[in-house]
C-alpha cells in the first residue's frame, strides 16, 4: 500500500504570515490538528494545534499573542514523504520522530497529507476486519514454500482470504494471521492440523481431546 492511496487531498494550508489568532480559528472551525505552512508557494513548515496552544499558553515563559505570525511557532524544517513511498516507511518516520502527520511532496509540489488516523484506517483495511470474516492463526516454519502450502490448501477449498498478516514469533517461527471469508474455520483448522500445520487458533477445545 502506497502513501498516495491513503493520503488526503486537496490539502488545506496556511501562509507563514498568517496570524496565530487566524490559524487558531482555522484549526478550530475545520476540525484539523495539523496545517502545512506555505511561503511563496513552497512548503516551509507545519503547525499543529498543540504547537499553537503551548506557544500561546499563559503558562509558557514567553507567551505568544494572537497578533504574531505563524512562522514564529511552526515546526521547521519539516519531514515529508513521496506519494510513491510505501505506507510502512511513512509509519516508521512518524513513529521515530514522534510526529502526527507528514506532508506529501511530489517534487516541490505539496500534493497531500497523511496523519496517524490515516495509518489506523490503513491498518484496519490491511487486517481485513471490514468484511465478514473469521480468524485463522498459524505458526509456520521460517522456510520457503510454507505460506504457499497454506494458501494452496485454502484455494483447493475455494476459501477467499480477506487478509494475511505475518510477523516473527518469539520461537523463530512465522506467526501468520488470516481473516477468511468463511464461518467454517474450525473444521478447516482440524483438516490443516491433520496435514501437519501448527494451528494456534482455532485452538483445540479444552473439553475435547
Amino acid at each position, binding site marked *: 500500500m502506497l502513501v498516495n492511496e491513503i493520503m488526503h487531498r486537496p490539502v488545506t494550508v496556511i501562509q507563514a504570515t498568517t496570524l496565530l489568532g487566524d490559524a487558531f480559528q482555522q484549526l478550530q472551525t475545520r476540525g484539523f490538528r495539523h496545517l502545512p505552512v506555505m511561503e511563496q508557494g513552497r512548503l516551509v513548515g507545519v503547525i499543529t494545534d498543540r504547537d499553537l496552544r503551548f506557544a500561546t499558553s499563559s503558562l509558557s515563559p514567553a507567551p505568544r499573542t494572537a497578533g504574531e505570525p505563524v512562522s514564529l511557532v511552526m515546526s521547521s524544517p519539516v519531514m515529508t514523504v513521496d506519494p510513491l513511498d510505501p505506507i510502512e516507511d511513512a509509519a516508521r518516520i512518524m513513529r521515530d520522530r514522534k510526529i502526527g502527520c507528514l506532508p506529501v511532496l511530489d517534487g516541490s509540489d505539496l500534493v497531500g497529507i497523511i496523519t496517524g488516523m490515516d495509518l489506523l484506517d490503513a491498518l484496519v483495511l490491511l487486517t481485513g*476486519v471490514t*468484511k*465478514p*470474516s*473469521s*480468524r485463522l492463526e498459524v505458526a509456520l516454519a521460517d522456510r520457503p514454500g510454507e505460506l504457499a502450502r497454506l494458501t494452496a490448501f485454502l484455494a483447493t*477449498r*475455494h*476459501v*477467499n482470504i480477506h487478509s494475511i498478516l505475518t510477523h516473527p514469533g518469539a520461537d523463530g517461527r512465522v506467526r501468520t494471521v488470516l*481473516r477468511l*471469508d*468463511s*464461518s*467454517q*474455520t*474450525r*473444521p478447516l483448522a482440524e483438516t490443516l492440523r491433520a496435514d501437519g500445520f501448527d494451528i494456534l*487458533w*482455532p*485452538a483445540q*477445545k*479444552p*473439553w475435547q481431546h
Partner: protein
Amino acid sequence: MAALIHRPEYAGYDFGPEHPFSPARLEMLLDLFRSLGHEVAPIAAPAATREDILSVHDEAYVAMVEALDQGKPNLEADRFGLGTPDNPIFPGMDLATRWLVGGILHGARMLMTGKERRVLQLGGGLHHAQKDQAAGFCLYNDLAVAIQAFVAHGWRVAYLDIDLHHGDGVQNLFYENDRVLTLSIHESGHYLYPGTGHIQDLGSGSARGLSVNIPLEPFTEAGDYLEAFESVVPRALSWFSPDVLVVQAGADAHFADPLGDLALTTQAFQTLYQRIFALADAHAHGRVLLTLGGGYEAQVVARVWTILYLTFMGLPLPEHLPAVWMDHWRHLLGPGTGRELHDPASAMPDLPGREARTRRNRDVVNRLLDSVRTYWI
C-alpha cells in the same frame, strides 16, 4: 396461545450434502416432537412476496438471487456473497428462502392482529444476510423482514439474538432505527465469524444505545454466559419497553457445536428459554416471535430445540429420548449419543483458564453498561 409454523417446503433451503446448514435437522426435530407423543400440526404459511423481501434488501441483490434461482450462471455472483463455500448457489434458492421468510412474516401478522401471543417459526433465523449481500449461510434476512413489518405497524421491536455468532445483518439493517433495539450475545468477533459485534458498536444517530452487543471469550461456560445475559438483557428490555420481542434462537453456542467455541449445556439453554419467556411476559406484553438459527451438531440441535419447543408450549420435559426415534436417526446422531434429553452432569470438566475468562467477560459487560448508561435513561 402458542403457534408453531413450519411447512415441508422449508427442506428446500438446502446448500447440499457437504454443507452444515442441513434441512435434515428440522425433519428429525419434528419427528422427535411426534415421537414424544405430542400432536404437532404446524401452520403452513404462504411464501413471502418479492415486495416483502424488498422491504429490507436491495433490488439488484434480489434480482441476482432470482437469476441464480433459475440456473442462470453469473460471474458477478461473488460480488453479492453468492457461490462461496458458505453460500453455494442452488436452483430454487429464491423461492426456498421466500418460504422461510413467509413463515416468520405470517407469525408476525398473527401477533399484530392479536391472534397469538407466542409464535415459533421452525426454521430460518437468517441473521447474517445483509442489505445487498448473502453471508454466513443466510440469503434473505427473514428476521429483518418481520421486524420491518412490526415497525410499519407502529410497534417498537426488541430483537434478541442468542446464536453463537453476532447478528450482524439484523444489527446493520436497523443501526439507525430508533424503533428497534437489537441485543446480541455471542462469541467474540476477535476470533469468530463474522468478526463484528463489539461493545463499541452502539447504533447511530437517534438510535445510539439501541445496538447492544455482549461478546464473550472463546470457551465461555454457562455460568458466565447467564450472568452476562442477566446483567444486560432484563435492564435493556425494561428500559426500552417494546411491543414485541423477536428472538433468533440459534443453538450453536452449545459446547459440542463443530463451528464454535462457547460451552453452553442443554441445562443452560433451558434456563435461557425460561428467562426469555418470562422477560417477554414482563416487558413485551407477552408477545414473542422466535426462529431457529445456527446449530450444526444433529444430536445437539434435536435436544436443545426440543427443550425450546416444550418450554414454549409449557409442556413438561421428558428424561429420555424415544428409542424408536433414536434408531431411526442413528445415522445422523452418531454412535456416542446417549438416551438422555439433557447433557450428563459431568459434561463440562474443570477447564483451565476459567477464572481469567470470567474476569474478562465481567470487564466486557461492565464496560458495555458504562457506555450505554447515558442512553438508557
